[in-house]
């Protein structure tokens, strides 16, 4: 019995070491981490018991500077079954939800407590008694490429340089560096966690320019944004907010 317990302990600790080693290799170059907003950081994830949920998406630099991501999924421990952390490495555009319940992948079994802490610089996984730290490279500070940057983008003022849709999904990648000078946020749909951007050499709120954004959280306004004098935006003195082609503009 004693020998059996020792062997079981050795198997579990070897697996834990293998898991942390593999993660250290895989996550040596994290660009960004997007965590499930519903989860409380620093606490063990314990509800709903037995369910499989998405914990986070870890964005990495793949081969040839192509970004990829790791979907981190977790089966929450229940009375019947221990917890299970499992990862899928996928293209950035693929939704992680598609891999929920697909546990035939890189994983760590026999997990009883799993939580995480996250700030701009570091991701910390709390796995039972282990604390695994991963540095996050601040990718906003540099771009590396094998081809000349911005060579395919020639924007003029008034062009969109970044665009999102109603569901906050990116439909045009951010290339605002390729604007002639500067750019502005513009309200043009029902996404309020992100805004499309247009190249502009003017300031917000000026005539024929995007209205300055007052925000939804501050106004509590939840109805259709696309109305004259929309409360979620404002213009300079003497001008009014109008909604033209679904965009809030000052006239």
């Amino acid at each position, binding site marked *: 019995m004693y020998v059996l317990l020792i062997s079981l302990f050795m198997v579990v600790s070897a697996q834990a070491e293998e898991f942390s080693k593999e993660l250290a290799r895989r996550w040596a170059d994290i660009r960004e981490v997007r965590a499930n907003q519903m989860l409380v950081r620093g606490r063990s994830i314990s509800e709903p018991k037995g369910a499989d949920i998405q914990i986070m998406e870890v964005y990495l630099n793949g081969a040839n500077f192509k970004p990829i991501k790791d979907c981190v999924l977790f089966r929450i421990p229940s009375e019947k079954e221990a917890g299970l952390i499992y990862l899928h490495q996928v293209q950035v555009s693929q939704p992680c939800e598609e891999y929920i319940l697909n546990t035939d992948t890189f994983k760590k079994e026999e997990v009883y407590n799993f939580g995480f802490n996250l700030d701009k610089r570091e991701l910390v996984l709390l796995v039972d008694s282990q604390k695994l730290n991963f540095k996050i490279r601040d990718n906003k500070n540099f771009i590396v*490429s094998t081809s000349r940057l911005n060579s395919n983008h020639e924007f003029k003022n008034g062009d969109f340089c970044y665009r999102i849709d109603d569901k906050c999904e990116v439909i045009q990648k951010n290339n605002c560096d390729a604007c002639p000078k*500067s750019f502005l946020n513009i309200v043009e749909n029902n996404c309020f966690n992100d805004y499309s951007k247009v190249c502009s050499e003017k300031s917000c709120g000026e005539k024929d320019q995007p209205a300055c954004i007052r925000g939804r959280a501050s106004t509590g306004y939840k109805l259709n944004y696309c109305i004259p004098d929309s409360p979620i935006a404002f213009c300079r003195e003497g001008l009014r907010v109008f909604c033209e082609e679904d965009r809030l503009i000052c006239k």
Partner: protein
Amino acid sequence: MLVHIISKYRWIALGIVLLPIVFYFWPKTNKVQSSSTSLKVYPIVDYWRYGKYQQQALQGCSDIPLGEDFIRCHPEPLLCQLNFEKKKFTHVLHANGDLDLNFQDTFLRLKNNCHRIELKENIYSAGPRDYNQEVWSNEGQDIKIDRFYVSTYEVARWKNPDLKLTYKESIKPALTLTLEERHRFCIDRGGHLLQSHVFDAASFFPQLGNIGLLKKSFYPWSKAKRLQDDCNSFVHKGCELDSAYARVGVSWSGVFHTLGSEAEVFDNPMRPAANLKFSSKYLDSKNPWHQIGLRASWTRDFDYDLTEQYLGRLESDLDIRGVAFRCMYY
């Protein structure tokens, strides 16, 4: 007989012997010349970000002292370092301060982000009053703010990219541009002149929860209404200020010069006339203008209205001796 055969086929024999040797060395030589993976990106990025250069690399090349904020995201010391390491590259410095480095088949763009902070997502209110005046929120907007004033180096480089300034001249705050020039400068940097309500958001202690009970702080260092009149808390009359990069008058957000230092102009889309922070190093520490959120007015050229625009109680007849500014970015 054997000598005859060797002599007849000696070139073929030599070829057979040399061919594998040539094949062995050929790919290796080629690999060294064309490999882009031999470029270590992160040490270069870290030089740019943190300015921890080798002292020998800067000798006779750059007079910027190590450890100063000014050395970060500055092209001069980085080029010194890369030349010292005998790296082969070409470079392009963009108007917004980004630096492109071209190492044969790898391109590296270093972003000019070292002196900016990102404003946390929250609900904010502009102006000095406690009640909910000029309330706004920045969820999803990604607003970044210059932590320091725009310096004479940045303005000199903007007006004439070839102009050389000494370190001491470079780090002074830029005080003399017209209002229109300041707008243009920030637009050319890929941003906009800092807006007054954004500066207030970065200055007042943020409030979480019920904004109906908004209570504003007087000073950037604490919520308590207690003056700290040392020269680090804020630069007032009797304190020295010779650098835009001085770490003084800091607020919770990491923005410096939120109180005291120089008078500072903003763009105020909510209340255009309220565009000048008058709290400055020319006023005694107990002067009532030293309170965050207060604004005087700079209309154009040399026209100033030194009446407080929100409360209306304060006035001044002090001469304005230069106005600082900074930019914000979406």
